[in-house]
């Protein structure tokens, strides 16, 4: 027990530095992912064939292929097409793709759950289709999808640990490199695991709370 305390003191700062990168990766891919998810959600139901097919392609590949494959595709694959990204940029791009694909389904579900009366009401008021989307459907649809999106954000935060495989210096990489130089693998992975849990578990409670709150007010 003494040794793990000592390891927390010794390696804590390094691991927390890694955590910062994990959180930055989560935040960026969540932000870009939500924007693309909204585009894909609208695109899949669009009457424009090109838009519908493009959206379907990105959603199907993003959900069908493991995040690990997309990560490595961006980092080890793209250089073959003379596109070389930094490890962080390729991880952000790959996780954005995964996030957008999964969240597109949640957002599509949320948009579909907006009561029909709201849309009829907007039409009766003479709102244009674009205004109906912008002021009526999207705000309410996103609100309905919010708990699912929060739950997904937790999974995405955990998925940033996969960026270890393309050498992004996030939490998992830091734990591994500290482990391999000190041979204290067990302690370091336990500390890293505890850090992941300390963020994931309360965040999950928050999303469950949001779901209950929403169920009461809808």
């Amino acid at each position, binding site marked *: 027990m003494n040794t793990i305390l000592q390891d927390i003191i010794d390696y804590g700062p390094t691991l927390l530095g890694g955590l910062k990168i994990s959180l930055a990766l989560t935040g960026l891919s969540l932000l870009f992912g939500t924007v693309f998810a909204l585009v894909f959600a609208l695109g899949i139901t669009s009457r424009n064939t090109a838009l519908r097919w493009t959206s379907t392609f990105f959603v199907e590949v993003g959900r069908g292929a493991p995040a*690990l494959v997309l990560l490595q595709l961006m980092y080890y694959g793209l250089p073959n097409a003379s596109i070389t990204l930094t490890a962080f940029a390729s991880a952000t791009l790959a996780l954005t793709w995964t996030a957008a694909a999964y969240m597109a389904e949640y957002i599509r579900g949320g948009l579909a759950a907006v009561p029909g009366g709201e849309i009829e009401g907007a039409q009766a008021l003479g709102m244009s289709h674009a205004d109906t989307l912008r002021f009526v459907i999207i705000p309410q649809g996103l609100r309905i999808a919010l708990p699912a999106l929060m739950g997904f954000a937790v999974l995405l935060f955990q998925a940033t640990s996969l960026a270890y495989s393309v050498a992004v210096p996030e939490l998992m990489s830091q734990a591994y490199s500290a482990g391999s130089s000190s041979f204290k693998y067990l302690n370091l*992975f*336990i500390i890293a695991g505890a850090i992941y849990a300390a963020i994931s578990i309360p965040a999950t409670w928050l999303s469950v709370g949001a779901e209950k709150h929403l169920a009461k007010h809808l």
Partner: protein
Amino acid sequence: MDILKAIALGLPMTLLVTAVSLGIGSLVALPLLAGLRSGRTAVRFLTRAVIDILRGIPPIVWLFILFYGISVGTFKLSAFWAGVIGLGVVAGAYLTEIFRGALGAVNAGQWEASEALGLDRFTLWTRIIGPQGLRVAIPGFTTYGIGLLKDSSVVSTIGVAEIVYLTQQNARMSGQGIVVYFIAAAIYIMLSMPLGMLSRNLDIKMRKAVAR
């Protein structure tokens, strides 16, 4: 074509890792389910904590704890077993929630009727609630299984020679990274689509067999 062949060699290992982890997960889920339904508050609380911890830590961390972290004397887990046990216990936590939801969906009247008939607990679980609960759990279970098929790719990080591991090797050797990774992605997509359709069909059939 050669690339496709080389990668497809990893397919049996991917399927094996998925199946074994799913099996371990189902076994782990049963005591957790019993714990959640326990009459003792302390047991329920403890089980909830175990589930939260299992789900709160990314699978790759569990894999690394088991593979690099655990060695008792000369005993060390092989990459395969570290992989399937790691994925399996995490799966157990998620499956517990799926099974719990399914039991909740079995009509309350089925419990009452069984009590009224004076059935013992064993018969209640094996003949009445168990089969109906299992049927409701099937779509959630297969959806999780399809997710696990993709998540099983993390075992490549500890050196299990499944699809992603072979893909990585091939990408390095052939210098055609994009093609190689797109082939791997296509294999996963082609695996999950029929499984998804199968699960939907099964669900429609099974729904008819559960009393409302």
